[in-house]
């Protein structure tokens, strides 16, 4: 992120290219929104929901983890709590209020988690967030078994697959717009500085805990909303489904593959990985976790800066060779 437009960005040719990209993005968005009216069948809508779900999760994850380089494995805690909130209130509150409740619960959880974990860094933070997601899972499990005396919940609300698809699409637009705005704000610069050197960040006047907490909560809010939006699709929800730790790893893999430090990077990773997971889980259901681990290792080893970084490097190299 640049706090200031670079001289290159101010150039006319780059400006024209950017305008073309923006036009392409708007056209693509319109096409995606109109997909249900363009004769897309249930299977295509289901695939679209899956991709949009991970698009929201990976982009929201990268809002925080991209610039700060704090690798969070707590994604599923917020996703699951959003889904569970929808399951609890789905049949008693109007749907917008259910979404607002999921947002509120995710934010509160993020603030509690953030205050507990954001003083940690590196591998300690990774392990803590993983353990924390499991703690939330087990707490919900315990509550359901001992208090409500039921482990699973049914959610029957009048929301169609197409409506879920549109909600997730709207959420994706919202998370991208939020990311765009943050990258141009003081908060965005603060997070870049924190990611680069947290000691320096403190010595240029950044309240690092507050900045991290704020963005962690924003990211968690979107993740919680995605969980709530997805809940009606399952109809039946139990803690093992809602708090499945594989979701945290999948989101991480997608974001890293695309490039976690670019706004559109995670999206670039979502499409191939979501389709690959679809293929692997269908064809090799008993070896899925092993293959997931191998994919993860391959991405980290071969493309540590993600596809976006790879493309940029190639473009820079081509530019240098062209300039010779």
């Amino acid at each position, binding site marked *: *992120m*640049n*706090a*200031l437009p*670079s*001289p*290159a960005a101010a150039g006319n040719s780059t400006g024209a290219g950017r305008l073309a990209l923006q036009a392409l993005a708007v056209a693509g968005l319109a096409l995606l929104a109109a997909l249900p009216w363009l004769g897309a069948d249930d299977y295509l809508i289901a695939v679209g929901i899956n991709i949009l779900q991970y698009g929201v999760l990976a982009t929201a994850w990268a809002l925080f983890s991209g610039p700060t380089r704090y690798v969070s494995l707590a994604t599923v805690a917020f996703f699951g709590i959003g889904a569970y909130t929808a399951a609890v209130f789905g049949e008693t509150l109007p749907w917008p209020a259910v979404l607002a409740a999921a947002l509120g619960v995710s934010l509160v959880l993020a603030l509690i988690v953030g205050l507990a974990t954001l003083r940690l860094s590196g591998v300690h933070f990774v392990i803590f967030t993983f353990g924390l997601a499991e703690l939330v899972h087990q707490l919900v499990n315990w509550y359901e078994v001992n208090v409500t005396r039921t482990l699973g919940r049914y959610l029957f609300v009048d929301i169609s697959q197409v409506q879920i698809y549109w909600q997730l699409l709207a959420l994706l637009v919202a998370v991208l717009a939020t990311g765009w705005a943050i990258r*141009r704000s*003081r908060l965005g*610069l*603060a997070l*870049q*500085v924190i*990611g*680069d*050197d947290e*000691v*320096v*960040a*403190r*010595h*240029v*006047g*950044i*309240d*690092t805990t507050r900045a991290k907490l704020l963005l962690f909560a924003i990211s968690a809010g979107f993740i919680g909303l995605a969980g709530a939006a997805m809940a009606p699709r399952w109809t039946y929800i139990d803690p093992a489904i809602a708090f499945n730790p594989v979701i945290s790893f999948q989101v991480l893999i997608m974001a890293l593959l695309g490039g976690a430090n670019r706004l559109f990077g995670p999206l670039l990773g979502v499409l191939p990985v979501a389709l690959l997971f679809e293929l692997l889980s269908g064809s090799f259901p008993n070896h899925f976790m092993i293959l997931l681990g191998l994919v993860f290792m391959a991405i980290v080893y071969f493309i540590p800066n993600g596809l976006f970084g790879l493309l940029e490097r190639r473009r820079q190299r081509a530019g240098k060779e062209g300039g010779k």
Partner: protein
Amino acid sequence: MSAPLLKVTGLTKAFGGLVAVDKLGFEVAPGEVIGLVGPNGSGKTTAMNLISGALRADRGSIRLGDAELVGLRPDRIVRHGVARTFQLVRVLGSLSCADNVAAGLAFHPGGAFGAGARERIDALLARVGLGGREALPAGELTYIDQKRLELARALALAPRLLLLDEWLAGLNPTELREGIALIRSLRDEGLTMILVEHVMEAVHALCNRCVVMNAGVLLADGPTAEVLRNPEVVRAYLGEDVETDDLPPPHLPTGEAPTQLNLDAGGQHA
């Protein structure tokens, strides 16, 4: 001496059984440039870390004007007007030079951000000799240029007190001359500074006063030339009983590289 800008009293910091700074006390007047000197391990950098809030004091007081700094976080201390550079240079390697300075401008009262900061960023980079390199990633700069950039970032904080921790270390003679000239220009503008330095040539050239530390305690405090000829100070540096008459003459031959332990280098570049 006018009312001090900085007043350090009874400052103490221990790491386990090792007392790194022991009841340190000194004052810095507004506009004054003092040298904080002493042999390696004497507690100079720990003292800088305590003043800037990187470390929390066990006991004692650090007052900047009317504000007590002990117990404040570094970001709060920055807002009171203390900026610093680091002994091991710390630039934001993945950000551009402009964004490194933007980071110094954006988060303090009276700072600026976005288009409104552009002019000040350009001016600060030009001031330290990095004009025209706004878009270059800081990680691609040479060591000396990274030091310049770190100084520009510190100046962007519009400090009342600037702490320079061995900012001139590791420079070749030409770079050293330029560095001294740059710091002198800041001094001439009235900026209050504390220089932790081993380059005695720079201390002689820039500091009207010196505070000498040894093994965590204050060894001497007074006019630079006088303090650096103090036999106690010489002994602390050289680790043996040396008569001041045995020291090299106060001026190095023209063109000779400055030595870091020559306490009486005389400042031929002054």
